[in-house]
């Protein structure tokens, strides 16, 4: 049974943990290699903010309650993410305790300045929006969110008015909308044409390519950033490909794993700002960030990649 520790020892333990995480992070990117290993970035259109092309999602993976063991595991994932040059972390009040987990790790890692904090408003009540956003902000422990999005278009008209007012007063830097699973694309298109947004988040990967037809070109034309969620179809795609060998020509784009193959496909689309895979594994977060490096496939190779996966 754990004995209660005096405050001084607790502080020491916290310091020790921070040191261990820093050491783990440093070992991921030793010395001179760290500079050359910085991930590729893309500017969020119209904002001047350059974001690494692979971010970090938190759906399921960071919903760990107040379990100290799993909280520390998530903190290690975020430490590795920042050490590999990552910045954008995405969450939502819908994701259980994920926001609090991120807040815990940001505090432990003293990384509030480092993170590009992307969250969502998820309520059908417009009036409940500001209160929910404030609760989310406190859970993260950040002074303000960089990006706030209307989750799954829920109550989007009212919430976008709220977010526009917040943006005008500097309470949030950027605003957007989200959808997933390829749903409600007609409505997303309608909003993209009508409303001034900084970002739209939707499902896009090597097999879910519905967005390529209208939404990706439209967002590009309108100068709106695009965040790709569900890059691995919540592991389903990785499981499907597991055991099958990568094509030899994957080496041409520096893809050593299926995860990197898929991520390179996503982030090489000219309209995509970044992809946000979620993971509980430090090795996977490093692998994901490593995909955001040259070389990336050109259009012809992207077609070949999609054809290859379709044929498996």
């Amino acid at each position, binding site marked *: 049974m754990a004995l209660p520790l005096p405050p001084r020892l607790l502080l020491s333990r916290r310091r020790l943990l921070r040191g261990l995480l820093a050491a783990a992070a440093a070992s991921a990117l030793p010395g001179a290699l760290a500079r050359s290993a910085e991930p590729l970035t893309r500017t969020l259109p119209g904002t001047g903010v350059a974001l690494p092309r692979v971010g970090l999602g938190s759906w399921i993976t960071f919903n760990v*309650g107040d379990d100290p063991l799993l909280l520390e595991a998530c903190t290690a994932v975020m430490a590795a993410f920042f050490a590999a040059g990552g910045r954008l972390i995405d969450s939502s009040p819908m994701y259980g*305790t994920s926001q609090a987990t991120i807040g815990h790790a940001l505090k432990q890692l003293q990384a509030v300045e480092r993170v590009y904090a992307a969250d969502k408003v998820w*309520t059908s009540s417009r009036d409940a929006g500001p209160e929910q956003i404030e609760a989310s902000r406190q859970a993260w422990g950040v002074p303000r969110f960089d990006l706030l999005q209307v989750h*799954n278009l829920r*109550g989007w008209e009212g919430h976008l008015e709220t977010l526009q007012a917040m943006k005008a007063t500097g309470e949030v830097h950027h605003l957007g909308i989200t959808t997933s699973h390829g749903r409600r694309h007609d409505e997303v298109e309608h909003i993209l044409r009508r409303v001034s947004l900084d970002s739209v988040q939707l499902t896009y990967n090597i097999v879910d390519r519905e967005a390529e037809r209208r939404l990706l070109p439209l967002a590009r034309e309108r100068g709106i950033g695009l965040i790709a969620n569900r890059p691995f179809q919540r592991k*389903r795609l990785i499981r499907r490909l597991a055991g099958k060998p990568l094509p030899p020509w994957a080496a041409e784009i520096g893809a050593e794993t299926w995860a990197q193959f898929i991520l390179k496909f996503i982030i090489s689309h000219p309209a995509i700002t970044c992809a946000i895979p979620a993971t*509980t594994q430090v090795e996977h977060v490093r692998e994901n960030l490593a995909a955001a490096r040259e070389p990336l496939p050109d259009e012809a190779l992207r077609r070949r990649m999609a054809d290859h996966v379709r044929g498996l």
Partner: protein
Amino acid sequence: MGGSAWWTYRPEDLLMFSPRVYARLFELHNQALWPAQLLGLALGGVALAVLLRPGPRGTRLIVALLAVAWAFVGWAFLWQRYAPIHWGIAYVAPLFGLQALLLAGLSTLRAGLHLPRRWSVRRGIGIGLFAYALVLHPLVAPATGRGLAGAEILGLTPDPLAIATLGVTAMAEPARRAWALLALPALWCLQSGFTLYILGEPGAWLPLLAVITALVARCWPAPAAQR
């Protein structure tokens, strides 16, 4: 998933947490409550003994113990532990309170519930379900790789409690009251089985089987003497 056509999602899309987090729920719950597991098993043993030789007072004792257990599990497990990682559970926890109130109300009546003394198919299944919840269900976690630390104990966690209540209500009379008390445990077992199924847990079929077994017992013709 609000605002979207939720019925178009795959079952696994509705899952909010990983199998690891689900397993750790029970480990942390057991750690926090130790040695209450021993009390739960002891009281469960007393209840099983009473079920084997039921009388009016013994029946009221069992109903009262179940009432306390539903209230405790609703608060300590569902509300405190499960709801933070699954927002839907916040709506389920009050139903556990309602079940506790129903049971508590019946336990105060002299003839609130009647349990049969003569052996019958219905009684055999009912006692079998209770005994399973008390003795065998705690072994499911270690048998399926989750370890003894994650054992689900009657009186402390929802699945064995729901299965034990199904056992009691499967054989209890009057039928209307028994059906009323059977509904929520059955619904809980269905949702638990669904959750375990989409988590890929090998024991997912157990709560579903318990519901089917209880329904079969409940629908089985009563012995002639009790008609």
